[in-house]
């Protein structure tokens, strides 16, 4: 693959998105440690290649559903950073008005239908969104992100069967980081895994090295075209590595000695950077992209910290129209 012309712009965009995800989450972790972010934080550091590579192939009117580790998906789909950071800090200007937090990041204005606090929770929603879009005559597709832990829940079986049955425009993306919370996926998963399960339900599955953002981009481009072309659902099985613990408070001491260090050498941003340098991109260009990303996120953190808290009355709002209760 050469890095000239349009392709170079695409690779730099991919690199930029990955750097922004990394910077967002590192900034959020720092803010969490400083006591600025309440509640748990699930970061996807090390997995940025999947979100960035897949979403680069989506249109603004395509939809995504995500899981509890959803910052990267949201950013890659174009969610506003100010609204995301304010949401993490529980501020009034957050995308969810401070009612969702990290685990429920959503930005419907860019087709991000929500992170989800329940493993596999986004799968039925994704297939239904695809069914609804078809009913409305749209050719938009839905991309459904979930982890390897989700494939042991019933909605995975139901949702893939359903999508295949109605030939729905859904791209399922399994981000297989090998661990379900604190448990190694292989120790709780029988059989040959997600791709074989998908194929058994008639959903063609493609494996990809999720830490190779170029490979993710190429595979996603093909699968998105097939899905949009009416070919029915597809599954992308992206293997990757979660460099941090399950939550912001998990030091991942249960990892084997040297495991994380070894994985760091294979992490997706370093790999794409090495590729871009090989292709003749100047180091200062890449440094500038990284620096801009860090500056953007640190500015967003400062802005969120200065932003107002939601008015207490907001707690009573957005429940329902009929039978809404009044503020005490």
């Amino acid at each position, binding site marked *: 693959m050469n890095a000239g012309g349009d392709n170079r712009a695409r690779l730099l965009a991919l690199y930029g998105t990955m750097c922004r995800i990394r910077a967002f989450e590192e900034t959020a972790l720092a803010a969490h440690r400083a006591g600025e972010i309440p509640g748990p934080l699930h970061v996807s550091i090390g997995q940025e290649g999947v979100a960035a590579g897949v979403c680069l192939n989506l249109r603004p009117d395509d*939809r995504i*559903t995500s899981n509890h580790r959803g910052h990267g998906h949201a950013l890659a789909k174009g969610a506003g950073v100010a609204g995301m950071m304010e949401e993490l800090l529980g501020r009034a200007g*957050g*995308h*969810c*008005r*401070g*009612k*969702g937090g990290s685990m*429920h990041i*959503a*930005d*419907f204005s860019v087709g991000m*239908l*929500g992170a*989800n*606090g*329940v493993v596999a*929770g986004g*799968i*039925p*929603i*994704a*297939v*239904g*969104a*695809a*069914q*609804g*879009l*078809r*009913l*409305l005559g*749209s050719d938009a597709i*839905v991309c459904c992100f979930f982890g390897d832990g989700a494939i042991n829940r*019933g*909605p995975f079986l*139901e*949702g893939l*069967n*359903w999508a295949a*049955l*109605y030939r729905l425009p859904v791209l399922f993306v399994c981000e297989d980081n090998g661990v379900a919370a604190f448990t190694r996926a292989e120790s709780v998963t029988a059989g040959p895994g997600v791709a074989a399960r998908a194929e058994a339900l008639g959903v063609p599955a493609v494996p990809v090295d999720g830490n190779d953002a170029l490979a993710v981009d190429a595979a996603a481009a093909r699968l998105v075209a097939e899905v949009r072309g009416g070919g029915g659902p597809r599954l992308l099985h992206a293997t990757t590595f979660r460099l941090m613990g399950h939550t912001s408070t998990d030091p991942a001491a249960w990892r084997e000695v040297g495991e994380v260090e070894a994985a760091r050498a294979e992490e997706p941003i370093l790999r794409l950077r090495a590729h871009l340098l090989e292709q003749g991109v100047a180091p200062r260009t890449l440094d500038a992209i990284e620096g801009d990303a860090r500056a953007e996120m640190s500015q967003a953190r400062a802005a969120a910290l200065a932003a107002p808290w939601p008015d207490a009355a907001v707690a009573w*709002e*957005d*429940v*329902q*129209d*009929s*039978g809404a209760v009044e503020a005490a």
Partner: protein
Amino acid sequence: MAEVTLVEAARLAALQEMRRDPRVWVLGEDVARGGLFGQYRGFIEEFGAARIVSTPISESTIMGAGLGAALVGTRPIIEMRIFDFVMCAMDELVNQIAKIRYMFGGQARPAVVVRMPHGMWRNSAAQHSQMLESWFAHLPGVVVAVPATPADTAGLLVSAIRSDDPVLFFDPKNLFPLKGEVGEAIEPIPFGEARRMREGTDLTIVTWSAMVPAVEEAALTLAARGISADVLDLRTLWPWDERAVLASVARTGRLLVAHEAVTVAGFGAEVVSRVVERLGPARLRRAARLGQPRVPVPFAPVLEDALKPDAAKVVAAAEALLRD
């Protein structure tokens, strides 16, 4: 006006709304063949397989797909076949549908109707007879509709389909053959307005859903014995017509809440509590609840009858309430 059965009234209401709004569609098991009770009879011929979607027995995805489809702007009717099967879709209903508007700060309005035919019916035993409407009244984010007549079922279903709130619609399956008048054009009935079944002065009886005909019969018996009951059918449990109940009890001073559901922690407890809080002991002299004992619904007709609240039990409870 035509006299139709309750299930036909429900069918006519959904038919009217599907003709009115192309965004309305139905998903659930066997709906293309008319649904388990014929509540979608003829729909497949008129609306086709894209809007009448017979699904696998995948309750989680029936519920969750309905939600996803609502998030992109359609208005699904989610058919659960029999209420008890909703237990297989509780994450999608409780954690997703009921929460999504709130936890996303109002970005989404899950305009779904979840139809769940509930209650005792043809000796169907413990997994096909439950009435757990109080669970859902406890759940913020949803409307809970519990109609009991053909006209109310039709009017409330029209409101449910037009509502931007998720509406849990409890079809009273044992009352499906019940007949009543339904207008040519079905008008929506607002949520939270009780229907006064009968005016009276001696005591207030509050009821809903499958219990309504039994209470109606009991009120006639009581009248013949010189007891005048003021009877309210709540029709919806959230929102519920607190004002109508308070006004009635303020006059009668005695309150009986009768429902088919288990008495313990049933919605009757909420009704009595609110009346106590608002009226106090000075104006509420006596209160009682009538429902099933806290046991599962058994199979054999004699066993089911032993537990089922009926007109005779309502009469006895009302008379006991007047003895003081």
